[in-house]
């Protein structure tokens, strides 16, 4: 059973609808007993880091995620759920969960491409350059694009944690992968067919 962590943060129903579309059973819950029983956990999120962390702490889900990651079972972070698995976020100067060493940073002002100023948030479709293969990205054309909407990006200290990068006037880490963790800045649930394929791959991934 796939579990989606319910922590009052945005796009949970979108993820649920996408799982429904690929024929995957799931539960949406903040109950650690039910989460413990899951085979895979998805940690989505839209919103601000400060509020999200306050809620997770109140529900002790930050501590639960630390335990889960050590079970070796698969965990997928999406958007805010990716940003707050690092140690720290510049958004609201927030201490975060720390499953991965590093921080979440705000895009610098005055990014540009070919002489034109780039807007913040980075909103729209962009591609991901993978540094290596990964089961969650199998059966997906490398030129596929994904839907991004964010002003902050994950920046892990350890380069080997970076699975994919995206170019937006600068190269940033758009996909993190460490052992049984895969986490992406874009929204697979809103990225058409390649996004649905990522969710499908995750649901059949053993975490290695």
């Amino acid at each position, binding site marked *: 059973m796939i579990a989606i962590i319910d922590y009052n943060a945005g796009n949970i129903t979108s993820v649920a609808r996408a799982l429904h579309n690929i024929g995957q059973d799931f539960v949406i819950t903040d109950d650690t007993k039910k989460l413990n029983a899951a085979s895979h956990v998805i940690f989505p999120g839209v919103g601000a880091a400060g509020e999200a962390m306050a809620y997770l702490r109140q529900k002790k889900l930050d501590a639960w995620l630390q335990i889960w990651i050590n079970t070796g079972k698969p965990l997928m972070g999406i958007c805010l759920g990716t940003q707050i698995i690092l140690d720290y976020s510049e958004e609201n100067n927030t201490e975060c969960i720390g499953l991965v060493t590093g921080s979440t940073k705000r895009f610098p002002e005055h990014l540009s491409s070919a002489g034109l100023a780039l807007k913040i*948030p980075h909103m729209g479709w962009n591609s991901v350059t993978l540094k290596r293969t990964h089961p969650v990205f199998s059966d997906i054309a490398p030129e596929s694009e994904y839907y991004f909407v964010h002003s902050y990006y994950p920046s892990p200290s350890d380069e080997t944690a970076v699975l994919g990068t995206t170019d937006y006037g600068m190269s940033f880490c758009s996909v993190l992968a460490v052992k049984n963790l895969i986490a992406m800045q874009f929204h697979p649930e809103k990225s058409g067919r390649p996004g649905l394929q990522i969710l499908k791959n995750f649901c059949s991934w053993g975490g290695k």
Partner: protein
Amino acid sequence: MISKRIIPCLDVRDGKLTKGVKFKGNIDIGDPVEVAREYYEQGADEIVFYDITASSDKRDIMIDVVRRVAETIFIPFSVGGGIRNLDDMRRVILAGAEKVSVNSAAVLEPKIITQGAKAFGSQCVVLGMDVKKVDESRQTPSGYEIVIEGGRKYTGIDALWWAKEGENLGAGEICLNSIDADGTQDGYELNLTALISDNVHIPVIASGGAGTPEHLADVLTTGRADAALIASMVHYRTYTITQIKNYLSDQKIKTRLLW
């Protein structure tokens, strides 16, 4: 690098497609969900639904449309029209829309932008602007004025000032509609689009006047728009979204070509 977005706009009244959407082909004229699916299959990057339902007792029908769309397509979509307060926004977002567009309500009560951004995040709040060209004056130094009520009512608000103000209030994106160009199929208002896009730091969707793929190429380069809204040219089946994207690709304008 980020792709330019192509966004079909569907007008919905009482749960059905309407207004100038006289399909010649075999698309079901009645159901916005089916048409949304068709555009999703053609490679639309996002879809805008505009609810022009007049009576408030029929507004729930739109919520049902939003819910069905969210179950059918897996790209972002926004809903505008008739959004008057935070509750209206919440209902649309809970039903599955990524973004809500506020237009007249934001002019009449600008704090709706701030409230929406605080409650759902700036990325959820699109400021819809209907704009008409006017003489440059002290009140409207940019030579563009905000109009409401479908272009019938002048507000005395300068369009450039309002765009910047909307950004400051917390809007995450601007959907900029030229009333002068709207429905003409003669091309977007390029000067207006470039003026606004150059002076805000949030993405700008150009709207009004699209008739040919060349018009999109113009507004995405000269007009410096981040995205282009289209309606008649695909509703009448003159072009498919795929054809438009292929043309833009030939012009070296980056769009998402694989879906």
